[in-house]
């Protein structure tokens, strides 16, 4: 970081801490979080990650596990997919074309950029292969490029689906392929105007017939106008054969990752909630995505807590809003979710892994780790456990920021790190 910008961020931070909230407060996590009253000082709290290289350091994983960087020097890796033959695909890119509408947007974008990588997004899929199974991914090759900020990945029935920021596309895939046979076929266009929240998350039903795409809102809380929120903040269900689509669930501010629960086939999501209501509002959450339901955004949060910033209000929608299943804590920025398998070991056999990119709108940063939410009888049960930490060190420096998490059927967790431009693999020690 340049000295001048250090000074800017520092002075901002000092200014802000004067009007921010409590120095530290317990993050309400779990199925029934206790929510404080909304609060906001004259300026929003901002604490931006101070990036440094990993060097010899690595993320910390639980006893009995090891972590290795299986690919480095990527160009903003976000989500990963394990193919049937064990190859790993990595979606790389950065999207969004949101105009800066207010002086605030100009200033905030400069400050937030300090906490992100300076690398240009790859707009491509990279394939990683460990042919001999020794844990070293010796092959790293471009599977497909010239994509438009690819993010969500899914595979079924010999078809590889990629959710670009403007369209859902499909590649034909044969086992062992290392390069796409040609440009992809468009399944359907996706809402792409502005793309304030540009990531399009993706999951596919086990029978390969229905695709689910998470589409984020076009603002924090309608500050770009209600008109640009048509077809935003929702999950679409898309017919794989025809591209026909319909809203599956709505009012989900930014559903950044989707996954299917093994067995039940239920769609689950992690959702990033709204900012600038204080350090402990509004909790980001993990939830089963219930068909036809409305989850509150923009009119209310966590059920019927009205957000007066969204005007004109809609009392009927507020009344209809349902509560999500499980709070992950406010501002953690959950960007990845995947169900675990018994091969991850007894303690981590039943539940989901969640990648937390880390906060900006909080004096005392949270997130910057991968957690495990234990399940029981198909529902989240109990306190979350830290699984991979150390992305933000005790020295206050940030070495990595987790995004997508993918469980490898061989019994490993793949973590995409979009600050260090690295893909990590956590394995159980033999």
């Amino acid at each position, binding site marked *: 970081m340049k000295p001048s910008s250090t000074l800017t961020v520092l002075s901002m931070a000092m200014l802000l801490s004067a009007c921010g909230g409590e120095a530290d407060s317990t993050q309400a996590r779990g199925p029934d979080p206790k929510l404080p009253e909304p609060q906001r000082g004259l300026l929003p709290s901002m604490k931006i990650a101070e990036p440094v290289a990993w060097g010899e350091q690595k993320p910390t994983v639980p006893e009995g596990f090891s972590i290795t960087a299986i690919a480095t020097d990527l160009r903003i890796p976000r989500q990963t997919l394990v193919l049937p033959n064990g190859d790993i695909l990595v979606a790389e890119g950065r999207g969004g074309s949101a105009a800066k509408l207010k002086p605030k947007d100009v200033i905030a974008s400069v400050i937030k950029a300090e906490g992100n990588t300076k690398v240009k997004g790859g707009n491509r899929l990279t394939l990683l292969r460990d042919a001999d199974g020794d844990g070293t991914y010796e092959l790293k090759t471009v599977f497909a490029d010239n994509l438009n900020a690819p993010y969500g990945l899914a595979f079924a029935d010999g078809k590889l689906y990629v959710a670009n920021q403007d369209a859902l596309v499909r590649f034909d895939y044969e086992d062992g392929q290392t390069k796409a046979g040609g440009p992809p076929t468009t399944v359907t266009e996706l809402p792409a105007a502005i793309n304030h929240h540009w990531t399009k998350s993706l999951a596919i039903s086990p029978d390969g017939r229905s695709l689910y795409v998470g589409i984020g809102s076009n603002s924090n809380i309608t500050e770009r106008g209600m008109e640009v929120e048509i077809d935003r903040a929702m999950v679409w269900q898309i017919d794989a054969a025809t591209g026909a689509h319909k809203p599956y669930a709505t009012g989900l501010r930014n559903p950044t990752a989707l996954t299917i629960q093994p067995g039940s086939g239920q769609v689950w999501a992690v959702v990033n909630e709204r900012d*600038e209501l204080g350090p402990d509002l509004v909790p980001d959450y993990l939830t089963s995505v219930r068909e036809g339901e409305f989850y509150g955004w923009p009119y209310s949060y966590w059920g019927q807590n009205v957000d007066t910033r969204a*005007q*004109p209000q809609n009392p009927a929608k507020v009344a209809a809003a349902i509560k999500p299943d499980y709070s992950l804590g406010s501002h953690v920025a959950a960007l990845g979710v995947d169900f675990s398998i018994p091969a991850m070991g007894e303690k981590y056999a039943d539940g989901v892994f969640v990648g937390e990119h880390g906060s900006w709108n909080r004096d005392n940063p949270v997130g910057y780790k991968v957690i495990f939410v234990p399940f029981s009888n198909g529902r989240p049960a109990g306190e979350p456990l830290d699984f991979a930490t150390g992305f933000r060190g005790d020295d206050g420096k940030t070495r990595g920021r987790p995004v997508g998490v993918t469980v490898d059927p061989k019994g490993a967790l793949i973590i995409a790190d979009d600050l260090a431009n690295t893909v990590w693999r956590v394995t159980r020690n033999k």
Partner: protein
Amino acid sequence: MTVTTTLTYRCTPGPLHATLLAGTVPLFLGALLSDIAYYQTYQIQWSNFAAWLIAGGLVFCGLAWLFALANLLRAEPKAGRPTVYFLLLLVTWALGLVNAFEHAKDAWAVMPSGLVLSAIVTLLACVTTWVGLTNLRSGGAQ
């Protein structure tokens, strides 16, 4: 009958100083009108206009304040007009800055505090401009 003529010497701002000072009025007034429009229509673009007009008003006001500072330093005596004008501009700018931060809030969070502040700042800009344009200091200027 003897007629006594008192010569009042009035010092008014130069063209640049006057432009900067008077420019604060339409800028802050434009912000106020935009705020009123947003308050009545919920159309967010009015709020965006208000935020930029306030930013422009702060630039004009801030530069005019530098002239006011120079005037204060050169004035003898300093009490009265030069100090009043200087302080009025300072308060206008300070409240304008608070208003800019209010307008950095998202969507309806700007309301109603932003609208109220815009009205106060516009009024202050009018008074300050009136004071500045009529007389910067009385007599004794070099």
